[in-house]
C-alpha cells in the first residue's frame, strides 16, 4: 500500500510504528535539540553579523523599544537596535548574542564535570562495594540534601566577582550526586543480570564488563541524567545572577534580568529588557525538558505507546 491512498489515521499509525524502529528519532528529542541548537545558532551567527561593541554601557541610546513599538517617552524602535536597548544604553541584541551562549556554557560545563565525577564514583561504589561504597553513598546522600544555591550564595558573597568558568566549577561541585546515585543503583542491579554474570564467567576483564557490557545499557540513563543536571546547573546559575552574584562584568541572561528588576523595568513598562532574556531562558528550559522526555521514551518503552 503506498502512502497516497492511506487515510490520515493510518498514516499516523504507520509513522508511529516506524518510530518504534529507532527510539532516538522521536519528535520530542528532535524538537528539544532543535530549540537548544537555535540558541547556539544565534550565538554563532550573531557574532558575524552584529556589532558586539554595542554590548558596552552607553554605546546606544537608553531604553529604546524593539522595532514597531513605542516606549513611554514616545520613542519608536529603530533598525539600529531591532530588539531595543536597556537602561544602561546597551543593545539587547548584542547582549543576547553574548549572554545566551554564556548561560548554556555554564550549564554544559558544570554538568560535564559533574557527570564525569558521577560516572567515576557511581561505578566505583557499585563495583568495589564495602567501605568505598559506604563512603560514596553517604557523601552523595549528604550532598543531595544541601541546596547548591545557598552554599554558592555564601561563597560568592564572600569572594565577590567570579568568572564564568569559575562559576561552572563551583556548580559542578553540586551536580555529581544524582548521577552517582543513579549509576550506582543501575550498576548494582546489572551486576545481578544474566549477561553480566555470563561475561564474568567467560573471564572478561572488569574494564570490559564496565565499558563494553554495562555502558551501552546505561547510555539513555546517562543522557537523561546529564540533561537533568544541565537544567539544575542553569537554574542555579540564573538564581545566583538574579541575586546579583555571579559574574559581574560578563553579560548573562540572569544578570540582565537582575539589572532590569533593580531598575524597576516592570513598572516602567520596559518589557523587552527583562522579557527577552526571560523568553530565551524559557526556550532553553523547554528544550531541555523536551530532550529529557524524549530520552525517557528511549529508556522506558512503556511510555512510548502513550505519546
Amino acid at each position: 500500500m503506498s502512502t497516497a491512498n492511506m487515510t490520515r489515521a493510518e498514516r499516523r499509525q504507520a509513522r508511529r510504528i516506524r518510530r518504534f524502529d529507532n527510539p532516538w528519532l522521536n519528535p520530542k528529542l528532535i524538537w528539544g535539540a532543535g530549540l537548544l541548537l537555535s540558541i547556539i545558532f544565534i550565538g554563532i551567527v550573531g557574532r558575524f553579523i552584529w556589532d558586539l561593541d554595542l554590548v558596552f554601557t552607553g554605546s546606544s541610546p537608553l531604553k529604546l523599544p524593539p522595532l514597531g513599538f513605542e516606549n513611554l517617552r514616545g520613542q519608536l524602535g529603530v533598525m539600529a537596535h531591532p530588539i531595543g536597548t536597556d537602561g544602561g544604553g546597551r543593545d539587547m541584541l548584542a547582549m543576547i548574542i553574548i549572554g545566551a551562549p554564556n548561560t548554556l556554557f555554564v550549564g554544559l560545563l558544570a554538568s560535564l564535570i559533574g557527570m564525569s565525577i558521577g560516572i567515576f564514583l557511581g561505578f566505583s561504589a557499585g563495583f568495589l562495594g564495602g567501605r568505598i561504597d559506604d563512603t560514596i553513598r553517604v557523601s552523595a546522600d549528604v550532598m543531595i540534601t544541601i541546596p547548591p544555591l545557598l552554599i554558592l550564595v555564601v561563597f560568592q558573597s564572600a569572594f565577590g566577582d567570579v568568572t564564568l568558568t569559575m562559576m561552572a566549577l563551583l556548580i559542578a561541585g553540586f551536580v555529581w550526586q544524582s548521577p552517582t546515585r543513579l549509576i550506582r543503583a543501575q550498576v548494582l542491579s546489572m551486576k545481578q543480570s544474566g549477561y553480566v554474570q555470563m561475561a564474568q564467567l567467560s573471564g572478561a576483564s572488569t574494564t570490559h564488563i564496565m565499558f563494553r557490557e554495562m555502558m551501552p545499557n546505561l547510555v539513555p540513563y546517562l543522557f537523561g541524567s546529564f540533561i537533568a543536571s544541565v537544567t539544575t546547573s542553569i537554574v542555579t546559575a540564573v538564581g545566583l545572577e538574579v541575586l546579583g552574584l555571579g559574574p559581574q562584568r560578563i553579560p548573562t541572561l540572569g544578570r540582565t534580568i537582575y539589572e532590569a528588576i533593580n531598575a524597576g523595568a516592570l513598572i516602567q513598562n520596559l518589557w523587552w529588557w527583562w522579557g527577552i532574556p526571560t523568553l530565551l531562558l524559557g526556550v532553553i528550559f523547554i528544550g531541555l525538558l523536551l530532550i529529557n522526555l524524549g530520552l525517557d521514551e528511549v529508556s522506558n518503552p512503556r511510555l512510548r505507546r502513550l505519546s
Partner: protein
Amino acid sequence: MGRIPRDYLINRIVTLVLTVLIAATIIWIIPRLSPVDPAEIALGRMAAGAGSVANSEEILAQLRANMGIDQPLFIQYLKYISGALVFDFGLSTAAFPTPVSKLILNALPWTMGLMILSLLITFFIGNLLGALMVWDRSPKLVKVAIPAAMVFTSIPPILSGLLLMWIFAAKLQWFPLTGAYSIFVEPGWTWEFVTSVLHHGFLPALSIVVVTFGFWALGMRGLMITVQGEDYVKLAEAKGLRPRYILYRYMIRNAILPQITAFALKIGLLIAGQVLVERIFAYNGMGKLLYDAILNQDFPVIQGVSYVIILITALSVFLVDLLYPFIDPRIRHEANA
C-alpha cells in the same frame, strides 16, 4: 506496618547530623578563606555614616574582639557550631545590634506559609492531572491539553513570577506588585490584614504552582502506567465498580505513595526556587532577608539564613524517610537501604 529497625534509624540520623554538620562547616569555612574582613566592612559603614572615623585602628581591634574574630580559628569554630545548635548566629552587622535569629524568626513564618500552601496546591493538582493523563476515560481534551501545559513546567518559578507580575500586577493591576501585606494595615488577626496577606501572596504562590505541578504530574503519569495493568484493577473492573471509584480508590491510592519520596528529592530545589520568587516579589520571607544581606555584605545573616534553610531541607528529607514506611506498608525498612 512494622517498627523501624534500629540500624535504619541510626543510618538516617547519622545522615541527618552529617548533612547539617557538613553544611554548617562549609558555610563557616568559606568566609574565612575570603580576603574580605568583616570588621573593615563595619568600619567602612561607620565612616560612610559619619564622614570620617577617629582612632580607626582601635575601633577595628574592638570590632574584631566584638565579632570574636581575634580568637584562634578552632575556638571560633567551636563557638560557631555550638551557637548554630541553638540558632545563635550573633548580631546582624547591617541591622546592628539586632540578633540574626530574631530577623530569621520574623521572616520564617512567611516563607513556611507560602511554601506549605503552594506545595499542597501543586501536590494535589499535579497528581490529579497526572492520573487523568493515564486514565482511559478522561476526556480527550485533558490528554491533549495537559502535556501541552506541562512544557512550561520546566521553567524555574522566577521566570513565571516575572511574567505573572508583569501581566497581573504591572499591567492589569489586579494584584500588588511587591510586599507580603499592605503598608496601610496593622499586622494582627484582623480581617483586613488576612485579606491583604492573601491578596499579596496570591501571585508568588501562583508563580510557584504553575511551574511545579508538572513535576508531580509527570511522576504520577509514570506510576499510573505501572498500576494500570494490575490484577486488582482488572478485578475491580470485572466486579463492575464505577470507573471513577476505581480511579480514586484503587489506582490513585496505590500510585500516589512513591510520589511522597519524590518530594524528599525535590524539596531543596523547591526552597531555592522560592527564595528567588520572594526576592523578585520583595516578599517578607527568607529570600528577601537573604538578598538584603547580600547587598549589605551582612555575613552573619547570610550564614544564618543558609543554615536554617539547609536545616529545614535536611529535616524534611529525614521525616519523609522515616514516615514513608508507615504510609506505605509495602515498603520494609532495610538496614542497607
